[in-house]
C-alpha cells in the first residue's frame, strides 16, 4: 500500500530524514518509535502529503505521490480521503463550532446526503463513546475528549490508512485503554494503522511490527514488535527506553 524508497528530506539545512526506505502493506499495524527529533513526525507528515521529499520516491497504492501530482485537485482530495491523519495537537485539528459539525465536516464535503451524514456522525460518536458531547464546543473539552473528537472527525471520512501522531500523549489511563481497544478494532476491520509512540505499556498487542528511527534520522531497525521491545539493551542504547 505504502512504499517509500531512499527518501531524503531537509528543512532548509536541517536534515530530518536520511535515506529512508519502507514498505507497508494493506491491513498492517506499524509502530514508529525513536527519540525526540528523530524524524517520526516529519515521516508522518510526508506520508500524508503535507511535505515532500527532496529525493527518493513515495508510492501510495501504486501511484507516486509528488508535490506536482497533488496539485491536481482531484488527485489530492482522493488521496487525503484515503489516508487520515490524527495530529498530536488535537487543538489544531478542531475548527468547527461544535462536535457534531466537526465530525460531519468530512462526510458533508464528500457530498453525502443529510441522512447518510447523520448516520456516519452518530456511528463515529458512538464508536468513540462521545455521544453526549455532540453539542459541546470542541475548545471547551478536556484533552482526552478533544483527542476522541479528532479521531472521530478523521474516522468519519472512512480512510483506508489511519495515521496517528502520539495518540496516547496526555491521555489518562482509562482513555489510553479505550484508544488501545479502538485501534485494535479498527485494525481488525481492515484499516492500515501507522502510529508514532513513546508509550509502550498501552500499545502492547496492537502492533505486529516496529520501525525504529535513530537520532541520525535513519531507520535503525524494522522488525517484529516483540523482538524489538524485548531487546532492552538495544532500546536503552538508542535512547528509546
Amino acid at each position, binding site marked *: 500500500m505504502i512504499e517509500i524508497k531512499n527518501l531524503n528530506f531537509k528543512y532548509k539545512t536541517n536534515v530530518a530524514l536520511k535515506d529512508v526506505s519502507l514498505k507497508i502493506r494493506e491491513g498492517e499495524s506499524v509502530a514508529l518509535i525513536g527519540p525526540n527529533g528523530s524524524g517520526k513526525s516529519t515521516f508522518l507528515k510526508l506520508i500524508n502529503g503535507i511535505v515532500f521529499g527532496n529525493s527518493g520516491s513515495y508510492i501510495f497504492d501504486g501511484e507516486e505521490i509528488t508535490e506536482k501530482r497533488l496539485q491536481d485537485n482531484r488527485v489530492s482530495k482522493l488521496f487525503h480521503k484515503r489516508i487520515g491523519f490524527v495530529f498530536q495537537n488535537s487543538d489544531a485539528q478542531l475548527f*468547527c463550532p461544535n462536535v457534531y459539525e466537526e465530525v460531519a465536516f468530512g462526510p458533508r464535503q464528500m457530498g453525502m446526503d443529510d441522512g447518510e451524514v447523520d448516520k456516519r456522525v452518530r456511528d463515529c460518536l458512538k464508536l468513540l463513546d462521545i455521544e453526549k458531547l455532540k453539542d459541546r464546543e470542541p475548545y471547551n473539552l478536556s484533552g482526552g475528549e478533544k483527542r476522541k473528537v479528532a479521531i472521530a472527525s478523521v474516522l468519519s471520512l472512512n480512510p483506508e490508512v489511519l495515521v496517528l501522531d502520539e495518540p496516547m500523549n496526555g491521555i489518562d489511563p482509562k482513555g489510553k485503554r479505550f484508544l488501545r481497544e479502538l485501534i485494535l478494532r479498527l485494525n481488525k476491520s481492515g484499516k492500515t494503522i501507522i502510529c508514532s509512540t513513546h508509550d509502550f505499556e498501552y500499545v502492547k498487542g496492537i502492533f505486529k511490527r516496529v520501525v525504529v528511527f535513530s537520532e541520525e534520522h535513519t531507520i535503525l531497525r524494522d522488525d517484529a514488535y516483540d523482538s524489538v521491545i524485548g531487546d532492552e539493551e538495544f532500546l536503552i542504547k538508542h535512547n528509546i527506553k
Partner: protein
Amino acid sequence: MADWLFEKDEYIPKEDKVKFIDKSILGFLNILSLIKRKASLSNGYVYSLNPVIKLGFTILIIIFLSLSRSFLFVWTVNVYLFLLLSSLNGEEIKDILKVSLIVPIFTIIILIPSILMGNKLNSLLMLSKIIGTIIAINMISYTTRWTHLTKALKLMCIPDVFILVFDITLKYIYILGEFSLEMLYALKLRSVGSNNNKYGSITGVIGGLFLKSKDMAEEMYSAMECRGFSGEYSSNIKFKFTFKDFMYCLLNTFIIGLYFYIGRM
C-alpha cells in the same frame, strides 16, 4: 462498529477550488521562515558586529541619507552599503537584492506623475535614497538575531517593559503562526470534497487561534507571577566591543562626516 467502517468507499471527488487554503499556508510558511531564519547565523563580518552599534549606525545612516540633497553623497552611501552587502552569504544577498528591486519599482510607479511633470532629478534622488534605505534595513534584519535587536533597543533608552513586550510578541507570532499552520494543514487534509463554505472553515481556524492565544496569555501571566514577576523587568545586555566593531564605527563615522562636506547641498 458500524458496517461502513468495514467497507471501502467508492468515492470520486468533485472539482473544487482549494487555492485559497494553499495560499494561506504559503503565506504563513513565509512569515514563519522569516523569524526562524535567525536560528543559525554565519561568522561573516557584518554578522559578528555588535548589534547595538549596528542598529545605532543603521538608524543614523538612514537619517542622514534622507536629509541629504546631494547625489554624490547618496550614491557614496549606496556604494558603501553595496560593498557591505557583498560580504554577506550568497543566499541572503539574493534575497535582499530582490526586495531592494521590488520596492523601488513601486516607488517609480507612484512617482510617474511627478516625473511627467518634469521633476526628474528629484524623483531619481528619491529612488536612490529608497534603494539605500531598504538595503540598510534588510541587512540589519538578515544579519542580526531578533533577540539581539530587541536588546539593543535598550541602549536607545527604550523602557524594559517595551522590550519585554517586543520579545513576547515575536515569540507568540512564531508560536501562534506555527499553530495556525498546523490548523490549515488539518483543514487541508480533511477538505476532501467540495466545500461551499470555505471562509466559514477559515473563521473556525481564526476563532481557534484567538481562543488559543487567550489561553496562552493567561497561562503565561500566571507562570510569570509564579516566578515572582511584579510588573518590572530588566533586560541585561552583554555585548563585546571588538576590533571589527571599531573598524565599523570608524567607517560609519567617516560616511556620516562626508554628509557635512558634500551631503548638505
